[in-house]
């Protein structure tokens, strides 16, 4: 075999796809030909480099979104309203991806403008003072400082969750039970521009926290300008909002709504939805 023929077979040889007799011919040639041996060595170098390519982790919320799309397809027009095509983004990346995706989300938001959640009118439920946006921004850096922003701007009463019913007129979900794996750090009945809600800060075992709001109305203005993804999580329709480090989720809970900030991934959304639907009084 000459060099040209060997070069044609080099990948087959390198990948061990040659029949044994042909393989022996190629091997004999490579021992005698520096040029062809160098070509083979280059293949090896390239394989080593390809081995350095990492395995990216898929975004955690993909099944929720896919399930909503499957549901929509199976129902024709579908009861789950998905956002327009451009807004379907990979949802919630772990670790270092989250910043990249958030940047992409923000860029997209500028491109397509504010995406309406359901088309409902929300009347006067605006947080035009930007307090909630300040809160969200601060929350990513320091939840304790963020809490002070809300306490500074809104009237509040610190309460035990079990005692909140007398101020709210209903028994909140958190009074029925605390989600597994969290403990209540603080709870406030808070008079916000949209409504009076119960805000509960719950700590995880690692010291990080989520904040649960139980409120009368939906919350699109809380996340004004943020693209939202509608998905079914644990059987409930949820609105998911990709924040810088975390995600926020909001879902209907009986006559009211629950919004949670500081969630790490959609699995956590699922468990929180399960908690709210399992243990609480929806009346």
């Amino acid at each position, binding site marked *: 075999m000459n060099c040209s023929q060997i*070069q*044609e*077979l*080099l*990948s*087959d040889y390198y*990948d061990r*796809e040659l029949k044994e007799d042909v393989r022996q011919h190629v091997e004999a040639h490579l021992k005698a030909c520096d040029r062809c041996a*160098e070509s083979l*060595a*280059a*293949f*090896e*170098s*390239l*394989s*080593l*480099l*390809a*081995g*350095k*390519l*990492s*395995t*990216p*982790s*898929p*975004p955690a919320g*993909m*099944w929720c*979104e*896919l*399930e909503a*799309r*499957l549901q929509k*397809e*199976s129902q024709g027009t579908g009861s789950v309203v998905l956002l327009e095509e451009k807004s*379907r*983004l*990979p*949802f919630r990346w772990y*670790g*270092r*991806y989250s910043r*990249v995706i958030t940047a*992409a989300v923000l860029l997209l938001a500028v491109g397509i403008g504010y995406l309406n959640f359901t088309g409902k009118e929300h009347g006067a439920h605006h947080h035009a003072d930007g307090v909630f946006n300040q809160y969200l921004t601060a929350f990513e850096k320091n939840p304790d400082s963020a809490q002070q922003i809300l306490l500074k701007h809104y009237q509040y009463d610190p309460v035990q969750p079990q005692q909140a019913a007398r101020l709210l007129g209903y028994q909140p979900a958190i009074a029925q039970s605390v989600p597994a794996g969290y403990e209540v750090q603080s709870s406030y009945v808070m008079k916000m521009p949209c409504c009076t809600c119960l805000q509960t800060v719950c700590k995880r075992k690692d010291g990080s926290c989520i904040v649960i709001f139980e409120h009368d109305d939906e919350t699109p203005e809380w996340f004004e300008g943020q693209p939202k993804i509608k998905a079914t999580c644990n059987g409930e329709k949820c609105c998911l909002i990709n924040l810088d480090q975390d995600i926020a989720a909001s879902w209907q809970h009986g006559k009211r709504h629950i919004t949670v900030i500081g969630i790490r991934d959609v699995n956590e959304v699922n468990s929180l939805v399960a908690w709210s639907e399992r243990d609480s009084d929806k009346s």
Partner: protein
Amino acid sequence: MASNQASEQVREAVSTEVEAGLLARCLQGDRQAQQRLYEMTMHLVYRLMVRLVGLQDAADLTQQVYLKLFSKLDQFSGKSRFETWLYRLATNEALQFLRKNKNRKTKTLMGDPVNQDQPESERDEQRELLEVAMERIDPELRSIFMLREVEKKSYREIAEIVGIPEGTVGSRLTRARRELQTHLVELGWEGLQ
């Protein structure tokens, strides 16, 4: 190598569950079965998509693959392995997308976790060079290279996935490797011998 072992485990798990009627349940619209199949295999599809179309479109195209998969599942004859069929769907989806978006630039994978024994700056630099070089070659060659070097597919499997004669896989791989080497050298890579 770890990803190869993981792929092998997935392959075995999928084979076992496919035999156990998972696909039949998916065909009946059983959402739990669909979720199970998706969770078992999605990282394979997503990994391929990231490499073929880039980070920014990988999640969306992965979902497209599963939408097609669940709508076309009745067309899976069982002649090839399910995993091979899934790769074929994914590769076709990626190549169609790239054909429609010829002028589009893919986004490299800055920030991926890799072997921690190597200085981070060096890892990033090497990885970026290969990613840039891969962007410069024909998408079909890129897919063949990926299926061989990352997914560790045999020539027969690659032929089935990409839809080319098995006898041409080696020559396409040689072309992909040479073009990648050329681009890498142009980019300043000194690791090639």
